């Protein structure tokens, strides 16, 4: 192509420009056609776009929390607080069963532990063991007495229904015995309600090193906090002691609880239990 000289006429110039445009833009036109074709053909389009989407998805997977965590958290916590009632309604019945299951499982573990120890004793055929098997204390008594000696630390006399304290004795001055009496009664009610619907009385509560032995009478009960293990015969000694105490020191009518009554019973409890030896 000859470059136009400066003396070209306007017609020639227009013609030249047209040619130039064709040369310069024909490539673009082809490219445009190709793009249009690609956009209209699904397979081609997906081939191009898929890797990009895939890459972006992978990125999101890795960085979702950073990118959107705050927003999602906001939405969730807003939803949660809006439907607090429903959630609590849903969780509550479950909680109850979970607690019951847990307690049952713990009891099972405790029982299995004792059973294994009883088996160990039965396997030892010393003459003493044989003698004990026929004439002496029961197997579980032996196992229990091998652990440690029982000692009475505190005695409570509690009105059965209300959980009000009728009197108490403690080796070491204790903080709030009224509150303990109430809590014991609540635990007792809960356990009796949950496990046998009140047909039987709860007899023992274990708490860390403490065992709380419960002795029930019609309108009140004794709670004796002890450390160590108590055998059946020692339990009997204790029960007899408590019954005697009740006969001698507790009035028939204990409906109205006042400090005159509780002071009197507490003094009597101290007198009876300060030197009490459960093994005699």
């Amino acid at each position, binding site marked *: 192509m000859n470059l136009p000289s400066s003396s070209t006429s306007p017609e020639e110039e227009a013609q030249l420009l047209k040619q130039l445009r064709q040369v310069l833009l024909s490539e673009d036109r082809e490219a445009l056609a190709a793009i249009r074709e690609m956009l209209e053909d699904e397979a081609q389009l997906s081939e191009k776009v898929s890797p990009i989407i895939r890459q972006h998805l992978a990125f999101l997977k890795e960085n979702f929390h950073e990118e959107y965590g705050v927003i999602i958290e906001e939405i969730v916590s807003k939803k949660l607080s809006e439907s607090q*009632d429903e959630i609590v309604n849903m969780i509550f019945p479950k909680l109850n069963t979970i607690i019951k299951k847990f307690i049952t499982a713990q009891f099972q573990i405790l029982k299995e532990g004792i059973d294994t120890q009883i088996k160990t004793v039965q396997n030892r055929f010393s003459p003493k063991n044989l003698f004990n098997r026929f004439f002496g204390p029961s197997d579980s008594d032996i196992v229990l007495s091998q652990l440690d000696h029982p000692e009475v630390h505190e005695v409570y006399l509690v009105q059965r229904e209300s*959980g009000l304290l009728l009197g108490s004795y403690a080796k070491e001055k204790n903080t709030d015995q009224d509150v303990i009496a109430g809590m014991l009664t*609540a635990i007792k009610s809960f356990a009796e309600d949950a496990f046998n619907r009140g047909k039987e009385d709860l007899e023992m509560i274990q708490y860390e090193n403490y065992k709380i032995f419960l002795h029930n009478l019609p309108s009140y009960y004794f709670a004796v906090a002890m450390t160590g293990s108590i055998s059946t015969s020692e339990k009997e000694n204790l029960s007899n002691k408590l019954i005697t105490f009740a006969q001698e020191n507790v009035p028939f009518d204990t409906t109205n609880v*006042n*400090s005159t009554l509780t002071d009197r019973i507490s003094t009597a409890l101290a007198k009876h239990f300060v030197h009490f030896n459960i093994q005699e």
Partner: protein
Amino acid sequence: MLSKKVILTGSFGVGKTSLFERFINNKFEDKYLTTIGVKVGKKLVNTPNGDLSMMIWDIAGEVAQNKVPTSYFLGTSGIIYVFDVSRPSTYGNIAQDLAYLKSINKLTTIKIVGNKKDLATEAELKALQEEIPLPVDLFTSAKTGENVEKLFLDFATEMVG
């Protein structure tokens, strides 16, 4: 001095534990820690009729009172039925609940208390009282402490007298 048992009951989250803590320890906690089982507390109250050692049972809330173990109510001299003025679901059952409580505790005095008073205006409380089929004895706020002392003191006075 006399000893008496009082029980706080009602639906969950209405502020039973908060009223208990406000009255016994003069504390308030914004966080909600639901009660499991029972918590028993004691407060010595001086009333014009004589002194009283009040044993207060704060029990776990239940949507309906017939779900509460009946043994908790045994030997109680007073029941405080608490609802939350800001949550209608906590007073929707009030008529059935009160009928039930009366049926199992014939001789016990029952007080109806609308708690979280700080979350409602006086006008709203008035409207609420009209909506509820039973007279509300007192509106309280465990948060600000308003009427909490009065609630327990009035009750103690009645019980001693």
